[in-house]
């Protein structure tokens, strides 16, 4: 049997790979649900704080908080890049990085500098090789990211923005649309984009306790933290979804490959039998 043994070894090895990928697929499938629950649990908070922010931007505070003021010149741009810690999730991270690189290129073309905060090992690994400043890095957020773990990295950006070292901040993450679709998203975080879909148009203002400045600051910082946290959770759900799809494809491909190789093996076996029979027949005729 020519090559019969080699083919069986190959089939067996692919079968093992298939077992691993299908196990990973199932693990990811169960994790999607958990991360989706987590995502939905924090939605009310994000929704409420957005509503309050909408009211705040319509009110007429006696002073303008730096986070809401658009700077005339953009000298330096900050990015908060949210990636995964682990690979095997298809083009999820790379599609995101392509988006970031395009945006970085655009700003550098305008003469602006760039500073990054990376979350997740994949982003820090990738952007180490790109010649840009990395201001902070956090990884190993785990399956249940805590808002407390993000505050440090976010603060780096906020402080730089306050000191006017950075004039514009983006947050980049994969938006979880559904299990099949994850959309790489680049969102402007600072200065806060204005919202104008509110029904309140009259001039009015809040009573602030203790004072407007401190309070606005607290609300804005909370808003930004909640926004980034939500982005991290979206990205987590995207990661599991992308991994599930990638692993499903790998499992399917392994199945196809096994079918093909089994066919080749059977053909080789048949050829060997045919050859043996014809040899016997030939031998008998000669006798």
């Amino acid at each position: 049997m020519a090559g019969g043994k080699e083919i069986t070894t190959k089939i067996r090895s692919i079968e093992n790979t298939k077992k691993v990928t299908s196990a990973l697929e199932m693990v990811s499938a169960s994790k999607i649900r958990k991360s989706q629950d987590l995502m939905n649990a924090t939605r009310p908070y994000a929704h409420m704080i957005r509503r309050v922010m909408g009211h705040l931007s319509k009110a007429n505070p006696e002073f303008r908080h730096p986070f809401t003021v658009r700077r005339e010149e953009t000298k330096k741009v900050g990015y908060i890049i949210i990636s995964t810690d682990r690979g095997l999730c298809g083009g999820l991270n790379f599609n995101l990085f392509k988006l970031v690189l395009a945006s970085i290129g655009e700003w550098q073309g305008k003469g602006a500098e760039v500073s990054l905060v990376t979350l997740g090992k994949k982003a820090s690994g990738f952007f180490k090789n790109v010649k840009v400043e990395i201001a902070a890095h956090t990884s190993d957020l785990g399956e249940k990211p805590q808002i407390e773990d993000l505050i440090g990295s976010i603060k780096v950006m906020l402080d730089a923005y306050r000191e006017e070292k950075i004039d514009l901040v983006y947050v980049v993450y994969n938006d979880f649309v559904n299990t099949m679709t994850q959309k790489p998203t680049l969102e402007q975080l600072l200065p806060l984009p204005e919202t104008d879909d509110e029904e309140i148009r009259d001039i009015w203002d809040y009573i602030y306790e203790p004072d407007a400045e401190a309070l606005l600051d607290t609300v804005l910082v909370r808003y930004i933290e909640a926004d980034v946290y939500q982005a991290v959770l979206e990205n987590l759900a995207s990661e599991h979804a992308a991994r599930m799809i990638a692993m499903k494809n790998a499992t399917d491909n392994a199945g196809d490959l096994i079918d093909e190789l089994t066919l080749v093996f059977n053909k080789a076996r048949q050829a060997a039998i045919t050859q043996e029979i014809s040899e016997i027949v030939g031998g008998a005729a000669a006798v």
Partner: protein
Amino acid sequence: MEKTAGTLKCDIVSSRREIFSGEITLFVASGVAGDLGITPRHVPLITELKPGPVKVISADGEESIFYVGGGILEVMPHVITVMADEAERAVDLDEAAALKARDEAERELSTSTSEMDVELARLKLLRSLAELKAVEMVRRKKKR
């Protein structure tokens, strides 16, 4: 739903979930500048909350008590929004754990030396005291 003059909508959310949402007639909480009692048609107000109990009387007269570990309160004439750092229904609070946390915090407060530790212990103490206060309020409500 039609909004009558006598009620206002109240939403209490923590960063992890929604705790309460409904029509109410009275809202009581402790803000950083003092205790607040809010009835419908209050002027717009925005304030920080101290860790403490929050009392809500809903439209049907039912009184509910929550524990809020600091956060932001926004009052609009017909909507109240509480964005809490952490929040819990007072009936779900664990009194024994709160007592333990209080004792621990007191001990830490007297032994810690670094500014950071003192601040953390102080926060822990404030939160556990607030939890205990909320538990106490529930108990009083039951007696009545």
